[in-house]
């Protein structure tokens, strides 16, 4: 940290005060890069020119702005760069208030020493770095929710009132954010197909209605989270409509196949066995001339062939008896 060269912007119209600050900074930091602005306007201009700024020191009374307005304007300008205000006794009360506005620290000019300035600058830089990191990670988690390709819902624990939805949910369901926020999660579900809720945890497959009246099937998963310091439930809904439709189609085809097997077994085979029975009877009860025997034999083998075909089809449908009884 010590061998780092800091870049400080001092916004101070009083040349005496500026010199003092410059002295203090150089005394403690050794090599330090100091930029100076004498009014808010030039500070703003300067801010756009320089980069890699580490901290801003701001005098509370400038020729073109002062007090709360000035602090607000500079904070907006500063973004992630920490800001320390320098003030006289008269402004002490406001200086305290400025801390809640986002100012990192305030220093009373009359009590300023090189070591108190050094400490405040270092503290402010480090604290700001940490809070920036936190803000960044919070933003990252918000982005994960907002930009996830899976529809996500955040709802109040217990009441199921929707608190937030992501962009994928808006796209998938067609409702506006305003419409969503006036709904409960249950309002999305179809009557005959709702997911199981155990201890505010959602699980299973659920039918959801879109704004266009279409029913989609979603697999729902949930987790307890904190949202604005309240307990909430985060729900992820993956669309499995295509998969469900596919399964339904296969099941339908299986039923059809089963029906075909039934027809083979009961209907188609009935006239065949009648023929086979009649041939059997002819052979047993009638005297058949030699020249007719071939015809009977051919008739018989044709019937057996057809019977074999029916059995093969049934075997493929897994419906055939595995062993003959007698």
């Amino acid at each position: 940290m010590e061998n780092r060269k800091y870049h400080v912007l001092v916004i101070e119209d009083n040349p005496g005060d500026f010199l003092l600050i410059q002295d203090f900074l150089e005394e403690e930091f050794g090599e330090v890069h100091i930029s100076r602005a004498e009014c808010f306007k030039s500070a703003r201009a300067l801010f756009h020119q320089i980069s890699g700024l580490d901290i801003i020191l701001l005098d509370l009374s400038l020729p073109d702005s002062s007090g709360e307005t000035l602090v607000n304007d500079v904070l907006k300008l500063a973004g992630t760069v920490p800001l320390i205000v320098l003030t006289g006794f008269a402004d002490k009360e406001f200086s305290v208030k400025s801390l809640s506005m986002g100012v990192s620290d305030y220093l009373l000019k009359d009590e300023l020493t090189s070591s108190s300035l050094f400490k405040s600058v270092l503290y402010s830089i480090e604290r700001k770095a940490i809070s920036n990191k936190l803000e960044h990670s919070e933003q990252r988690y918000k982005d994960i929710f907002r930009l996830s390709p899976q529809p996500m819902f955040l709802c109040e624990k217990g009441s199921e009132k929707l608190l937030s939805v992501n962009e994928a949910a808006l796209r998938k369901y067609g409702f506006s954010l305003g419409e969503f926020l006036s709904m409960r999660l249950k309002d999305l579900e179809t009557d005959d197909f709702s997911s199981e809720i155990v201890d505010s945890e959602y699980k299973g497959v659920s039918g959801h209605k879109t704004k266009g009246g279409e029913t989609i099937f979603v697999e729902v998963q949930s987790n307890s989270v904190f949202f604005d310091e309240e307990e909430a439930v985060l729900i992820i809904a993956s669309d499995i409509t295509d998969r469900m439709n596919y399964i339904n189609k296969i099941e339908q085809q299986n039923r059809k196949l089963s029906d075909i097997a039934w027809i083979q077994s009961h209907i188609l085979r009935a006239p065949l066995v009648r023929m086979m029975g009649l041939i059997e009877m002819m052979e047993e009860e009638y005297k058949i001339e030699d020249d007719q025997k071939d015809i009977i034999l051919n008739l018989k083998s044709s019937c057996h062939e057809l019977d074999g075909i029916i059995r093969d089809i049934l075997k493929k449908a897994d419906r055939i008896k595995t062993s003959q009884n007698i």
Partner: protein
Amino acid sequence: MNKELLLVDDDEMMLFLHERIVKKCNISAPIRSFRNGKEVLDYLLEDGGEGNIYLILLDINMPVMSGWDFMEELNKQKSKNRILVVIISSSLDIEDLERSQQYAQVIDYLEKPIKSELMLRLMKHEKLRDFI
């Protein structure tokens, strides 16, 4: 004690064939034919006697009342007569074979077409000893 052989099939030709085959087995019992489960059920219900033995050769797939529906109805009745059933079906369906084993009255399941020697062998079934 009466003994009767009841043939049940909606197919006229099958009834004719089965009757001829059965007659070759020298069965003394009178033979009656029925066109569906309902007809044979009504016939059995009309019988007020007791101790009679009926052997029923039963087809499965029939209009009005199928063989299975007949078996269900039969099991709802308290009969004082003995009823033995042989399923004779053109069905090769495994489900039909499995179902036939659920009924105490069913002593065998034969696949159409039945031949004379098959029927002769059936008549030697131990449960048919009192019937022959």
